[in-house]
C-alpha cells in the first residue's frame, strides 16, 4: 500500500534541460605513480604534470605529445608551477628540495635545500618572485619561503607559519599577498613583506587540498577533505558559495568562460582496494557556479582525482589521478550551448 502523496503546492515541475555530450579524452601515461598536481601555462599550449615518481613532465596540451621530463628530483614531487612567459618551471618535492628549471632545456638552474618536504609552490604573476612552503616535522616548523628569481641571494622573506601546516598555496592578485590553505581547513593571507598573517578564514573542517583563482582573480575556490568546495571573495575571504559532495574533494577549478565549477576527488587512496570503482566515487563533478548544484559528471579515472585544471581558453579540462594518468578532455561544441533555464 502506498502512502498518500504529500503534495507540495509550492513545487512547480522543474524545467529539465538535458545535454549529452561525448568526449574522447587523451590519456597521458608518462608517470608510473600517482599524479599530484597538473598545471597549464599561460597560453595553455603546455601542460605540466608532477607525480609521486620523481619526474615532472611537460606535454603539448592539444595532441598530448610528451615534450620532456625534468629529471633530478629524488622523491615524490608535490607541486609545480610555470612562470608567465613559460621560460621557468618551479617544482617542490619530498626530497626536501625545490628546483627551478629551464622550461625549454629541462635542466635545473637552481636548487634550494630545505629541512622538510615542499608541499606547495608558485610563481608570482609578474614572474620575478616565487614562493614555496615546507611541511612541519617533529623538530621543524612549517615555513613559507619567498625568493627572487633575478638574484642568487638569500630568501626575500621567510615566514614562520603558526598552527597547522600549509597544504596548498598561491599568489594573490597583483602579488600583494600569498594565499594559503591549511591542514586544519583555514585559509589565510600572508603578507610576505612583513612576514605575517593578515587575514584568516576558517570554514572548512578538513585539510584544504587545493586553491585555485578564477580567471579574473576576484574569486578563489578551495577544495577540502571535508567533502566540500568553497568559493571565496579573494580580498575579503568572505564565503560566497559552498559546493557539497559526498566524497573528499582533492581539487576544484573554475571555468574561465562558463559559470561552471569542476570538482574532483574520491575516496582516500588507501581505502580504494576495499571497494569497487563505482562506489569509490572517482568521477569529476560539474557544478553550476551560481546555483551550487551539480549539473554533470565525468567518469574515467580508476582512482581519486588529485588535480584538476581548466585550459585557459575554457574549451577543455584535464585531470590527474591517483591511477597515474592525466586525462585531457576536449568539450564537445554542445557544451557551450548548455544553459540553465529558470
Amino acid at each position: 500500500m502506498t502512502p498518500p502523496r504529500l503534495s507540495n503546492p509550492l513545487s512547480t515541475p522543474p524545467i529539465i534541460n538535458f545535454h549529452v555530450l561525448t568526449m574522447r579524452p587523451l590519456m597521458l601515461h608518462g608517470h608510473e605513480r600517482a599524479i599530484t598536481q597538473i598545471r597549464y601555462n599561460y597560453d595553455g599550449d603546455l601542460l605540466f604534470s608532477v607525480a609521486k615518481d620523481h619526474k615532472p613532465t611537460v606535454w603539448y596540451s592539444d595532441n598530448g605529445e610528451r615534450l620532456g621530463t625534468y629529471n633530478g628530483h629524488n622523491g615524490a614531487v608535490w607541486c609545480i608551477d610555470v612562470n608567465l612567459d613559460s621560460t621557468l618551471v618551479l617544482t617542490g618535492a619530498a626530497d626536501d628540495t625545490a628546483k627551478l628549471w629551464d622550461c625549454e632545456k629541462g635542466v635545473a638552474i637552481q636548487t634550494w635545500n630545505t629541512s622538510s618536504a615542499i608541499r606547495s609552490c608558485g610563481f608570482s604573476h609578474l614572474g620575478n618572485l616565487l614562493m614555496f612552503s615546507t611541511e612541519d616535522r617533529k623538530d621543524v616548523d612549517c615555513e613559507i619561503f619567498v625568493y627572487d628569481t633575478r638574484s642568487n641571494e638569500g630568501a626575500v622573506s621567510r615566514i614562520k607559519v603558526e598552527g597547522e601546516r600549509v597544504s596548498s598555496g598561491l599568489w594573490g592578485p597583483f602579488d600583494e599577498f600569498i594565499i594559503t590553505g591549511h591542514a586544519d581547513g583555514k585559509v589565510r593571507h600572508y603578507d610576505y613583506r612583513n612576514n605575517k598573517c593578515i587575514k584568516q578564514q576558517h570554514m572548512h573542517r578538513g585539510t584544504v587540498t587545493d586553491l585555485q583563482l578564477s580567471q579574473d582573480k576576484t574569486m578563489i575556490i578551495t577544495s577540502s577533505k571535508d567533502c566540500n568546495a568553497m568559493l571565496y571573495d579573494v580580498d575579503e575571504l568572505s564565503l560566497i558559495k559552498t559546493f557539497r559532495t559526498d566524497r573528499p574533494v582533492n581539487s576544484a577549478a573554475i571555468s574561465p568562460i562558463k559559470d561552471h565549477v569542476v570538482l574532483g576527488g574520491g575516496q582516500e587512496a588507501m581505502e580504494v582496494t576495499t571497494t569497487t570503482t563505482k562506489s569509490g566515487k572517482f568521477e569529476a563533478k560539474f557544478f553550476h557556479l551560481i546555483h551550487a548544484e551539480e549539473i554533470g559528471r565525468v567518469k574515467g579515472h580508476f582512482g581519486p582525482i588529485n588535480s584538476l585544471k581548466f585550459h585557459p581558453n575554457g574549451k577543455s579540462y584535464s585531470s590527474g589521478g591517483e591511477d597515474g594518468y592525466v586525462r585531457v578532455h576536449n568539450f564537445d561544441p554542445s557544451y557551450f550551448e548548455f544553459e540553465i533555464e529558470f
Partner: protein
Amino acid sequence: MTMTYDSTENGSSWADRMEKEEVTFDGNKKIVTHHELTEDGMFKITKIYEIKRIPKSVALRREWGKFGDASSDGKGVNPSTTQVAEDVDLTLTTNTETLEQDDDPLKKLGSQHKMVSCRYCKGDHWSSKCPYKDTLGATTMLEEANNSQAPPDNSNGAQSGGSGVGNLPTRSSGGKYVPPSLRGSDGAGGKKGELMSHSRNDDEQAAVRVTNLSEDARESDLRELFGRFGPIQRVFLAKDRKTQQSKGFAFIHFSSKEDAQSAITNLNGFGYDHLILKVEWAKPSNPR
C-alpha cells in the same frame, strides 16, 4: 586532401601547368592546387590547409626539441605515452536525480528488479532513502511494537488512523527478528530481553526523539532549546560519519519523565530555524 583525375586539359604544354601552383584562400582555409604527372596520367592535386592563428610564442614552443626521458621519442606523438581513451559521456542536466540513477548500482538494482522494498511505505527503494521516513517511520515502529504485544487479530493497522497518516501496512512479528527490548509477553523469549532492559528502560522513558531538525542545528542549540524544560542528561545529534553534517534528527535524554513530557507538548510542532519540529517519545513506553 582530394585527388581528381584530370584529362580534359590537353591544350597547353604539361610542363607549364606543372609549375603552376594555385593558392586560394577561403575563410580560414588555404587551398593549394597543382598538377602532377605520374605513370598513370595527369593528376590534379588539391591540398586544403586549415589556418589556426596562434600566438608567436606558442608557435616557437612548438619547435622545441624534446628532452629528458622524451629525448628519444622522435617527432610526433609517442603512442606509448599518449593514448586515446574510450569515449566518456558528460550529461549536463539540471535534474540531479538522473545523475544519481546512472551511478548508483544499488539504486539500479532497486528499480529494475524490485528486490528492494521500503520498510515504511513499501515502495521499491531503500528504507533509508524513503521520502516518508520522518512521517511514517515513527508510527510504523510504534505499531510494530504494539503488534508484538497485542493479539494478531487486530493488527490491521486501524489504530494508527489517529496519527493522521492513514492506514499503514503492518506486519506480524512471526518469524521476524524482534529486538529484546521490544519482546513483550508474546512468547517464552520475552523473559530474556527483560532482564537486560530494566535499567535501560527507565532511562529511555525520559528520552525524546526530535526530527525534522535543520541541518544547521548544533548540539549546543538543542541544549539551549530543550534545557528550559529541565535538566538534560545527554544530547545525541545524528551526524553523517564522513561529512559531519547533521542528519536532521536528535535524541534528548532528560533526567525526569515529566520534563520530557513538557518538552514534547511544548515543542512538537514548534517552528525552529525555518522547519517545524517533530518531538515525540524516543521509544514507545512499554505498558507492563
